[in-house]
């Protein structure tokens, strides 16, 4: 089973490497959205410093959602998904592997580039780690919840807008707590509580979301 899962992850990563523009588009979207906020709000450093975690988090949320459509769509189009449904590996495990690969492609680059963007907002350097850590714990949750939405809207008309309507409300607790971590650290409270909550969410979503997405996939494909 482990070999099959490794194969799924390897295949998705290889596909992403061959179509690297897909990965870069999401990353560039993230960078551009974050850069738009100072242009819209004004370059006041004190203001930018306070809104930095929230802006980075909202932009990461939108970028993660932008990439969701692709999680199952191409596998569905070329019939690979049906083979996965029929395969001996439990579908929940396959979905978990696909989510992991999806996060490595679309989530991890956001985490890595977020400190640079936060510096543009004059965010204190010693807190960059907290922000990146909160994103590192939070973006996998976004991918996991998003997998359920992506599975439910597979092959539907108006999929993209519908997917955002389904998934964004479910993202709200992650956003509140994720952005709260860096904000609490900036105000001197320390972000441990929020980071622990994010970790709890990750464990919870990691345990249940793949199975819910697997059920949704079976409904969508049958």
């Amino acid at each position: 089973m482990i070999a099959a899962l490794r194969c799924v992850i390897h295949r998705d990563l290889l596909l992403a490497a061959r179509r690297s523009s897909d990965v870069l588009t999401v990353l560039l979207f993230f960078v551009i959205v974050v850069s738009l906020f100072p242009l819209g709000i004004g370059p006041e450093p004190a203001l930018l410093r306070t809104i930095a975690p929230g802006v980075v988090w909202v932009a990461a949320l939108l970028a993660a959602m932008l990439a969701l459509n692709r999680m199952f769509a191409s596998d569905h189009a070329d019939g690979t998904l049906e083979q996965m449904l029929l395969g001996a590996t439990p579908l929940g495990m396959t979905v978990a592997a696909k989510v992991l690969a999806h996060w490595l492609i679309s989530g991890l680059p956001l985490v890595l580039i977020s400190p640079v963007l936060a510096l543009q907002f004059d965010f204190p350097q010693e807190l960059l780690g907290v922000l990146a850590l909160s994103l590192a714990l939070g973006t996998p949750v976004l991918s996991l919840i998003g997998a359920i939405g992506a599975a439910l809207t597979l092959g539907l008309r108006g999929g993209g807008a519908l997917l955002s309507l389904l998934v964004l409300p479910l993202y709200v607790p992650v956003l509140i707590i994720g952005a709260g971590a860096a904000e609490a650290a900036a105000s001197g409270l320390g972000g441990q509580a929020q980071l622990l909550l994010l970790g709890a969410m990750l464990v919870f979503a990691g345990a249940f979301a793949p199975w819910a997405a697997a059920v949704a996939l079976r409904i969508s494909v049958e």
Partner: protein
Amino acid sequence: MSINWFKYSSPQTFFPLAGRLASWFGALALVACGAGLYIGFFVAPTDAQQGESYRIIFIHVPAAWMSMFLYLVMAFWAGLGLAFNTRLSGMMASALAPTGALFTFVALWTGSLWGKPTWGTWWVWDARLTSELILLFLYFGFMALQAAIDDPRRADKAGAVLALVGVVNIPIIYFSVKWWNTLHQGASVSLTKAPTMAATMFAGMIVMAFGFWFYSIAAALMRARCIMLERERASDWAVEYAKGSA
């Protein structure tokens, strides 16, 4: 004697029953809402701190209760439909969603009408208000997903998964007051201690809550009847009913 739990799970047997129940609960809703509004506006005393503006709670609080409760009921039917593969459960879930969304909207709307004179603002980003807003989005998402799927069986099942996932939001709403505890006051009514309000105010609110409850049952059953007719339009009983009522 064994009970046949699935007797009314077929649209054909449930359709006439739903019609009778809907008219009874509709009548009860009229009586209860009339009595509740009478108590609320004429019997209940003026509040010492908030003046007359507090009277909106007679609509606001029951609507907020119903908005959350109906989501649970909807998820219950949705889960039942997934577990037993009964057609009617999915129809009930999709019949409940618009009523739930309506009450969520009413709760938000009346809350902001109450907030302006009392808190001095139409809207605050308080935990409970925000959660209620998310609940409204969840209802919209459920309805949008079902509307986007043409095959009713897939629509029911996909909606059921979404509703069950959204149920995670209900405890967040409930505990958010304790977790974040911002502007919104704690619950005035709980099962474990005596209500912190005058008995007549409490009575008015409870009567209104029953009124909204009966209304929800009546409205959901009426809507379920329409869905049943639409989906079963090829079957004999539906054709017969349509001929009889034409």
